């Protein structure tokens, strides 16, 4: 397995052109974290069950542990590091802080990414819609209550309410 030739990948990460070499079997979360040093994307299971590694791939919400790194050739990846504007938190991030929607914080990057994907698709979701959208993002600390409130509130801010 070590003798296989590495694959060269050109992609865009958080709006910046990036190139990397990866093994054919390497997954995107591994390359983001350990090659590109973008450790904001977390790994909780590597089987697509916990959502901590959520990123946007050409705007689509994916578990980066289930995407082969070589697959992102020519595509655009958005990670938690690329969510806020320079020096300013995104409303989802701000509302998570105001509502105390995190305790340990390990699921938070995934929640931020998944919520942004939701609010872009559905700017005014119901509580139930938020709950089902985030059903793939496990949080063991909060019981979800404050996360759901934060996302609903962020939606209101983004709608200009």
């Amino acid at each position, binding site marked *: *397995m070590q003798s296989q030739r590495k694959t060269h990948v050109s992609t865009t990460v958080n709006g910046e052109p990036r190139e990397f070499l990866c093994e054919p079997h390497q997954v995107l979360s591994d390359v983001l974290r350990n090659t590109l040093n973008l*450790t904001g994307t977390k790994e*909780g299971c590597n089987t697509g069950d916990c959502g901590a590694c959520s990123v946007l791939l050409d705007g689509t919400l994916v578990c980066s542990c289930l995407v082969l790194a070589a697959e992102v050739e020519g595509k655009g990846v958005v990670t938690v590091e690329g969510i806020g504007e320079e020096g300013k938190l995104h409303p989802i991030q701000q509302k998570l802080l105001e509502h105390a929607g995190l*305790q*340990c914080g390990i699921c938070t990057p995934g929640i931020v990414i998944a919520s942004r994907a939701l609010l872009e698709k559905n700017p005014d979701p119901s509580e139930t819609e938020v709950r089902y959208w985030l059903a793939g993002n496990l949080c*063991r600390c909060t019981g*979800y*209550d404050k996360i759901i409130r934060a996302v609903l509130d962020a939606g209101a801010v983004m709608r200009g309410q």
Partner: protein
Amino acid sequence: MNMNVKTEFKYVGTRPIRPDGPDKVTGRARYGADLNVQGMIYGHIVRSPHAHAKIKSIDFSAACKLPGVLATMSADDLPEPGDRKIPGGEVEMALKTFSPVVMARKKVLYHGQAVAAVAATSPELAAEAARLVKVEYEVLPHIMDMHAAARADAPLLHDDVYTQGVDPAPTTPSNIPTQIEISTGDISKGFAEADLVVERTYFVPMCHQGYIEPHACVVQTDENGKVDIWCSTQGAFMVRTLTAAVTGIDIGRFKVTASEIGGGFGGKTTVYLEPVAVVLSLKSGRPVKMVMSRDDVFRATGPAAAAETRVKIGVTRDGRITAIETDILMDCGAYTSHPIMAGVLFNSACYRCENVRSFGREVLTNKPRVYAYRAPGIPQPVVAVECVVNEIAERLNMDPIDFRLLNAVDEGDVMAIGIPFQAIGLKQVLQEAKAHPHYTAELKAGQGRGVAVAFWINAGMQSSATINVSEDGSVNILTGNPDIGGSRASMALMAAEVLGIPVETIRPSVVDTDSVGFCDVTGGSRTTLATGGAVIKAAETLVKELRKRAAAIWSLDIEEVDWTGGMAVAKSGTGLENMNREDAATRGDKTLTLADLAARAGATGGPLCAVASHNAHNAAPSFALNICDAQVDRETGKVDILRYTCVQDAGKAIHPAYVEGQMQGGAVQGIGWALNEEYIFNEQGRLDNPGFLDYRIPVASDLPMIDTVIVEVPNPLHPYGVRGVGEVPIAPPMPAVVTAVNRAAGTRLCHLPLSPPKLLAAIEAAEAGTA
């Protein structure tokens, strides 16, 4: 012992944004697996494929032939544990009950137990090398069922475990390490006085703490013998103590830095990877990183004990409890760990009862060694006690909260073990719950409601804190307790309260073991109380120093200088509370702010800093109550939690949002344990559900909002009235959910979890019985 408890606060009780928050929502915060260092290699653990076997030999030769494999290790690289006892914080731990969990010695006692390790230049190569390590086993019969393991003729896990707590001391070993019984009054007399006696047996399965971040560490060693550990843990000092004990290396050679921690709940109060990485690093001369897979986490860490509890409660016709008898059998996995103690001592601590007998036995089985999980040992028997209390109230035709109010303990009442209660908030919690609109909301057909209460003891223990003032008067607080749920914010709030300066000007840090005095783990609901206590103490020392400096500048006696509103004020008098500088100036008082004094620190005696060493003897118990409404789909057996309310006595809520968070998070963990979470072992003794797909923790769509009511009955022993809050929330949910579900479904299931197949079968049986 009672002290003046402060009741008016300026900062405590507010909800500022946590200081570490921005790093955590942007991905900048660094957790266990987020550190990569130059020259780093990767460790991989070889795990047992058998649930019970002798290790006959370990052959690394094939693995070592792979280019890039730089070190190997096994228990041969660690000292024999013998009978050494290690101070493990709250309780002493025998080294032989956790060293083999790090690395098995001679025998493996559960599937997935570590038997060897390798380190190589890439994670893939290390995994490949681990597959080439040849371990020869002699397979032994395994025991998974705790009843079978408790029998006298059962195959033994250990030949040196003799039941403690039995007289005369047994001369033959057994799988029961501990037996304990407490009693007060006359249990037979108590039952004779009862008009109604209800006896039931409840089973609670083994479950996992389920933190989302797998265990991870990076270890660097140097030419001088220094060992640096970076890891995800509930306590850096605990890692230092236990890693030193397991490896036999002097404590003085270690520096441990706790990374941000992605959840622990008791499961990160020990070491698994750290001693292995230390040995691999020393042998290879390279930094070593180790990260567990989710599969490893489920198979080889945690879990929480399974237990079967028989409970028998007697009451008079008018609802007074006359006798409580409990008998607990607790499955502790492969090594002794004593969660039974709390279960036996406190399972009915909510109730005033003259006649109590509580008996418990721990049993060893071929499963992973259990570790703490939030109020360890309590949720399992509390299910039984609370469900029976609900049944009794129903049969007496009494409201379940009224029944509890009639029997609830209060200040001055004495626990079964003889300890009298100080001021406690159980009655207030019950009254708040009764007044909550949820409690009287109408239920529809097919829906059920359950309530339950629980007690937890909470811990104090040792903590240190350092406060340093910068030249501009900004303040740094250093403590050694990993921030698992907002504790930096609480530390800053308490320091702000003492110093009288805005909370935003205080920067709290969690630092390594070289940079602050000893701190016990973040656990036992102790951090806000004990580490917060150290912060308060250090801040008070600093205030005294600031008054002294101001007095020196003004050529006054220290007694002539007050500290108020964040400044030293000369000519102390009345009306100083909440005074600002303008007011003081108007009065003609001289003032010096913290910034003024910081700027002149050099001229008045040197840098401004304060240190506190604290052993908190002022922990106070917490009580929590949950109300659960549930609905059961009679076609599928699926349960919907419709509405949920938590009421808890927090003493004083320092940061109420994070107190609510503890209540909500604990409730949802308990809901998961009640409805879905369980370890499922197959006939080979292997865990069949070692992933989040099959070990199903609650997800967002499973739940409603979790309403919270914080009751504040101050702890009379703490300057701000703080009790612990983190653990008790997991104890009431299981009985509240089980009662609600059984009422909704018309069943009387006593075997958790109430998973859909089980519930469906019970519904069908109930329908067949009534048809």
